[in-house]
């Protein structure tokens, strides 16, 4: 009996090895290739210092993209995340500048809580407009993108909003520049956020519902799943991820302006798609998304270190990457 079980388990393992989904592996292969190219271009590239730097700088996009993975897996799209970063960051700094709480420690904790709630509410707004208002997510979030961006411009009166209290700034700085056991805090945050997201997406009932809703809404509805609730919660998760990114962003510069986070929505969506999540919903890959965000940042870094392509072309290269990623995905689907 036990022998039988063992051999059948071995068979399952062998089959799993053979059935590896090429689409899930592709982004990691691309990452490995990029690292190789980078090492050939400039020996400094492969140093731990440089790579840690790249990873740190990818943190904002990576964390936002983790949220976008949920929204996209459930078959929706959120274009407002870049504007939302600017809006929530402005609110956070204004809150800290208001001085309603005298004690700096309490003030910082309150500001963090405030930011998280603001993120969740912004996401909830997007979700309710799309589901209750029954408006295409593309249009709904195009609208809120304008609203969040416009409100930021209004709050800053076209200029910058800067954290005034030096004591607060000093205390908050390590949240971006500090290290935990030698690892920069942003990297730790990326890993933590991703691990939690992966757990939710792959190991919980809600995660399974997200994929089902994105795959086929009718099947989900006939299976007794509250489709609108699942979609709305995905938008809220996106809002929470934006809040997490803001919590890292504010201590970095201590300042925001109307141009904060411009085109971040495009980078986040690119990271998700490069990571192997299907843009039409139904398959989410959180670790792939992180990999996609690293790839985007690495490409910029290689261009910077290489000297034979102008770094002003970064936008064009990133645009090309999303198209190439789609073509690769398509060809892999055909084969499997």
């Amino acid at each position, binding site marked *: 009996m036990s022998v039988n079980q063992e051999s059948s388990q071995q068979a399952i393992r062998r*089959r799993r090895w053979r*059935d590896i989904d090429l689409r899930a592996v592709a982004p990691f292969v691309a990452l490995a290739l990029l690292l190789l190219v980078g090492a050939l271009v400039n020996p400094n590239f492969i140093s731990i210092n440089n790579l840690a730097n790249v990873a740190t700088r990818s943190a904002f996009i990576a964390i936002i993209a983790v949220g976008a993975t949920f929204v996209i897996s459930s078959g929706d799209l959120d274009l407002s995340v870049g504007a939302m970063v600017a809006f929530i960051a402005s609110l956070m700094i204004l809150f800290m500048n208001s001085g309603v709480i005298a004690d700096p420690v309490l003030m910082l904790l309150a500001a963090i809580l405030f930011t998280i709630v603001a993120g969740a509410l912004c996401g909830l707004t997007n979700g309710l407009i799309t589901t209750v208002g029954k408006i295409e997510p593309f249009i709904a979030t195009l609208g809120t993108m304008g609203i969040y961006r416009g409100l930021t411009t209004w709050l800053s009166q076209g200029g910058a909003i800067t954290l005034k209290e030096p004591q607060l700034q000093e205390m908050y700085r390590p949240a971006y520049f500090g290290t935990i056991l030698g690892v920069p805090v942003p990297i730790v945050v990326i890993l933590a956020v991703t691990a939690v997201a992966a757990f939710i997406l792959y*190991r*919980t*009932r*809600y995660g*399974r*519902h997200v*994929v*089902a809703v994105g*795959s*086929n809404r*009718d*099947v*989900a*509805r*006939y*299976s*007794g*799943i*509250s489709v609108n609730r699942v979609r709305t919660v995905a938008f809220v998760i996106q809002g929470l991820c934006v809040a997490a990114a803001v919590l890292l962003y504010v201590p970095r510069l201590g300042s925001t302006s109307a141009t904060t986070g411009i085109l971040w929505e495009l980078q986040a969506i690119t990271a998700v798609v490069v990571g192997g999540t299907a843009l039409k919903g*139904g*398959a989410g890959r959180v670790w792939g998304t992180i990999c996609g965000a690293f790839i985007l940042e690495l490409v910029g870094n290689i261009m910077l270190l290489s000297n034979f392509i102008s770094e002003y072309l970064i936008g064009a290269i990133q645009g090309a990457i999303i198209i190439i990623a789609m073509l690769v995905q398509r060809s892999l689907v055909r084969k499997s």
Partner: protein
Amino acid sequence: MTTEVVDGAPVVLSARRISKSFSGVQVLFSVDFELRRGEIHALMGENGAGKSTLVKILSGFEQPTSGEILLDGKSVKLPPDGAAEALGIVIIHQEFNLAEHLTVTESLFLGREVTRFGVLDRRFMRAETRRVLELLGSHVDENAMIGSLSIAEKQMVEIAKAISRDARVVFMDEPTAVLSREETNFLFRLVRKLRDKGTSFVFVSHKLDEVMELTDRVTVLRDGQWIKTAPTSILDGEAIAQLMVGRELSSLYPAKTEPDVDEEVVLRVNSVSTGYVRDASFEVRRGEILGFSGLIGSGRTELMEAVVGLRSRAAGEVLVRGQAVPSGDVHAANKAGLAYMTKDRKAKGLLLNAGMMANLTLQSLGRHARLGYLDPGSEQAALVKARRRFDIRVRDDSVVAGRMSGGNQQKLLLAKVMETDPSIIIIDEPTRGIDVGTKQQIYHFISALARDGRSIIVVSSEMPEIIGLCSRVAVMREGHIAGILEGDEISEQEIMRYAAGLKKKTAA
């Protein structure tokens, strides 16, 4: 009766020793097939026998691994992706290939629009469309939007499309699956008319009676092998079924079990109305199989969706064991023990890109979760159990639902619904598009569930199925229940009388 085709009529299209493998798995083994000019040729076989593959090869959508195809006696390599239409070979798919937002005329001329001086010649195209539709005796408006047509009318447009392209060979895959009896009769008249003018038809269907009625010759495939080709007139339904299955079909339907009269009434539906359904009342006892018959579009599905909360009710109440179930609340209905199994397994029942396990447990994830955390071991155990219980046959566990045969998909869907452990199960079209062998299995599953003390409502357009399974039959017509038949009243003629509005009785 069918007319004999003169023996020796010229052969239009034939296949010689066709074999086909998909990634190492052989699905056709040296199959021969021959289609004469002006005949209707039935292609029969269980699901997975290789009918669809053969049709795809004969219409150019797939290339054979070995063997040759002859068109008018000459060996040809058919062009791929529907380009064989230019050779007069047309396939009418089970799911229509029509864009909802085009008009009938635009659909007919899609991809070969007629132009004059570079501008679309719309008047000519409209006139030509009218001509073809007249030829078919159809009253469909050539300017109507495809989206506004009924399913039967869409089918008519597909056929018109085939004719307007001077089709010599037409493949029809399960054309009557979505048609009512009258619409089917009309289609058959049309097919015969075209046959007499020299068009050849290949008719793929699971409905034995229709094959007997319409076709001139029958070819039976089993497990990818050619079994027999013979004139339909020398066979009978029983013989064809035996050729397909390769064993005797002892009896298609299990013995009926009737619940006692004093058995508890578990479901009581009182005067339910929705947009279309008016004032529908019925009740189901424990262990009973209640049938719902009627023409397509008579409101059966709408009523059932209102009962299980997938659709809100305008009026009326639903009581499960005396407890009222709120309107439009699927969760409450599920909790009360009601479950609905959709007739549209591909669009509404299964996630075609997902594996068996994700599909099986989708509706009942709560059973495998502790505080929202899913236990893969428990899900795996459920799959093993369901596969054994419902005899789901697949090569390995990781296959996605979209790649399974129709019969296995249907069993998986039934298993998925049963995972919620319902006491009242509404099964809409339990055997649509599946083969005789699997049908028989599903009938036995249904019967076993009833003997188990569960109550079952079978909604079906196939009358033999309703008559063979159910102890009482409700007949719907134009949104209301025309009558509920019991015992000796349950016969095709009697059901038809109610369905067509010739007879009526109010529920006692």
